[in-house]
């Protein structure tokens, strides 16, 4: 059987995939998120999570935090392509294991189960700055802030303890120390 035939070359050697957190400061105008997200989907880049909100009310600047993965050259392209978008002011790129960067994600869990399991669940969440936001006879809603992978793990642990609903914000990031990204 002949293989598929096309007019294009075969893929070259691929570099190693890395996880990066890309932070983009944009004008908060109509369609800006579609531009950023469309760039990712159109060029085949990954989005693992996305968090966006206006951070400067006066200048109407929004901060978009995107967790992505790709080879070093793909990550470089992502940054360069983002910088070409007209409403984009600046683009920062952090490696996931960069010790100088703080990463946090907020999650809400709804647990419906027996008292015993709810207590267990609450205990598991304790070390992630947890707050119980709502309680009923057989349920509670709890908020945690943690790293992405910690939340991934929590979801696994909470499953058998009655986790019925999860909501996550996606990771946000900030540099440590007095420096800010210019």
């Amino acid at each position, binding site marked *: 059987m002949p293989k598929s035939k096309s007019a294009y070359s075969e893929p070259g050697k691929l570099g190693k995939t890395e996880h990066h957190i890309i932070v983009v400061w944009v004008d908060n105008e109509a369609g800006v998120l579609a531009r950023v997200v469309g760039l990712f989907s159109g060029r085949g880049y990954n989005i693992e999570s996305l968090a966006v909100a206006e951070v400067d009310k006066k200048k109407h600047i929004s901060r978009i935090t995107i967790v992505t993965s790709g080879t070093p050259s793909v990550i470089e*392209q992502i940054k360069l392509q983002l910088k070409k978008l*007209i409403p984009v002011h600046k683009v920062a790129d952090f490696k996931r294991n960069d010790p100088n960067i703080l990463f946090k994600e907020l999650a809400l869990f709804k647990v419906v189960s027996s008292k015993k399991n709810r207590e267990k669940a609450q205990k598991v969440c304790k070390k992630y700055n947890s707050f119980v936001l709502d309680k009923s006879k057989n349920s509670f809603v709890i908020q945690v802030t943690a790293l992405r992978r910690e939340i991934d793990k929590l979801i696994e642990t909470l499953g058998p303890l009655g986790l019925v609903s999860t909501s996550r914000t996606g990771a946000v990031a900030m540099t440590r120390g007095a420096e800010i990204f210019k």
Partner: protein
Amino acid sequence: MGKLISGAEIVFKVLEHHKVEHIFGYPGGAVLPIYDELKNHKTIKHILARHEQGAGHAAEGYARSSGKPGVLLVTSGPGATNAVTALTDAYMDSVPLVCISGQVPTHLIGTDAFQECDTTGITRPCTKHNWLVKDVNDLAKIMDLAFEVATTGRPGPVLVDIPKDIQFKKTNFVLKNSNKKKPNGKSKPNGKISSSDLDKVINLMKKSSKPIFYTGGGVINSGPEASKSLRELVSLTGFPITSTLQGLGAYPGDDPLFLGMLGMHGTYEANNSMYSCDLMINIGARFDDRITGKVDEFSPNSKKIHVDIDPSSIGKNIKVDLAIVSDVGSFLQALNKRIKEKHKDFLNSNKQNIAKWWKDIDKWRQKKSLSFKNSKDVIKPQYAVQRLYELSKNKDTFITTEVGQHQMWAAQHYKFNKPNRWMTSGGLGTMGYGLPAAVGVQIAHPDKLVVDIAGEASVLMTMQEMSTAVQYKLPIKIFILNNQYMGMVRQWQELLHEKNYSESYTAALPDFIKLAEAYGCVGIQATKPDELDEKINEMINTKEPVIFDCRVDPAENCYPMIPSGKPHNQMLLGPEDEKEEVTDEGKTLV
């Protein structure tokens, strides 16, 4: 408090401010207020196309041949969607276009109103930027910014979507003359080229014994001065130079230092030089996949310098050793100055260094890779292009093309000596580009000879624009290399799909002579090689638009060709080379 004027009038005020003389378009419901306003602006002439895609390609031809942005005016819904092909084409080939589209009134947006579509959504990936104007007070600023974005940095298309109510609404017209504040500093590459970068370039040039300039459309886009500087640089160094499809004309095609076009259908000497060089100086080209072939084996032993105005073009496909983000014109000027100041005798002192290299190149040249077996009985397409070149080269001729074999033959056999004389759809490869592009070129250059070297399949895609040419008395010449096949498709099917010519033969073609007459222009046909010159001269001397039906050998293939996943140093030169079996694996790679 000044006089209040309508959104439609503001559109024209900004067009006038940017000295726009021609707009290409097609009216419709959602854009009528702008069309209504047209009569009040005598310096702006509207060219009525027959399809919005045609209007778009015409605007592209206008832009590429004149260096000015092309302006396109279309209605909402189908008007906008028909323009998408032209916008994408312009985006791929970096052509500055400003597309103004009508939109349904603001209060109807999102209701699936008649002729509504999400124009900004649809055109977002095929424009540099687009705007939906929601407030008439923003209109002047947005229109002005649209020109700024389209024409600066790496040029490209932009779109301004204007709802009908905004076109009617009145406001004060204020256009701040000082639009100096660039949108987030994107338009201009930052600052001057550092002399340390220039010295690095010169150092690499001195160390190299096998250098090559690889130049592209960026040189054309940078303006005629850039082409002049490129010529100077080549003469200062004595280095060989090759060009991409889009860069043809930046350097004289008949100059001995020019190796011809490179890439899939480039010359043997150009591709072998690219493979074997030890220094590649890329000026305004983008390492497109038609150029590089197999990336892993692309020019394995060379240091690479890449000069480009678009930082995202550098390192995208090929890693380079020295990246310089700059307008290529400014770079070339600065480099020439540096060489003349600090390395006056570069050419002579370096001659010995590259003498062996030129000997290698001459050996490759001996292969005469563009040669073909001519015939007395049937017109070979290459011969037709050669004759057209010989008979039109003494005029300042502008050539457009469609897409396919004829396009490659035109690129190989027509020698361009000036920039902006060659308009072809390279990145997107849009069949149907050439005829409307010729319309736009002729609008920009009413007294010049404009020829669309076409294929019969491509040209039928936008044939309706002949009607535009006739309306505006544009004497464009449509020189059809008629082989009755989608020739490039047929060629690939022959080489890769066991000659299964699936749907690539057009069993019913129009009589092009009668078609020409139906449109009100002149039809000429040539079927024998010995009548070709006379017929081409007849075409050139005809004052009306011409459709020239040049019946050529239907079985001719386009050579040379980099086949099946081979690197640049293993080209097919002609049918004799084909016998070497293409492996299954290789078939995916052409």
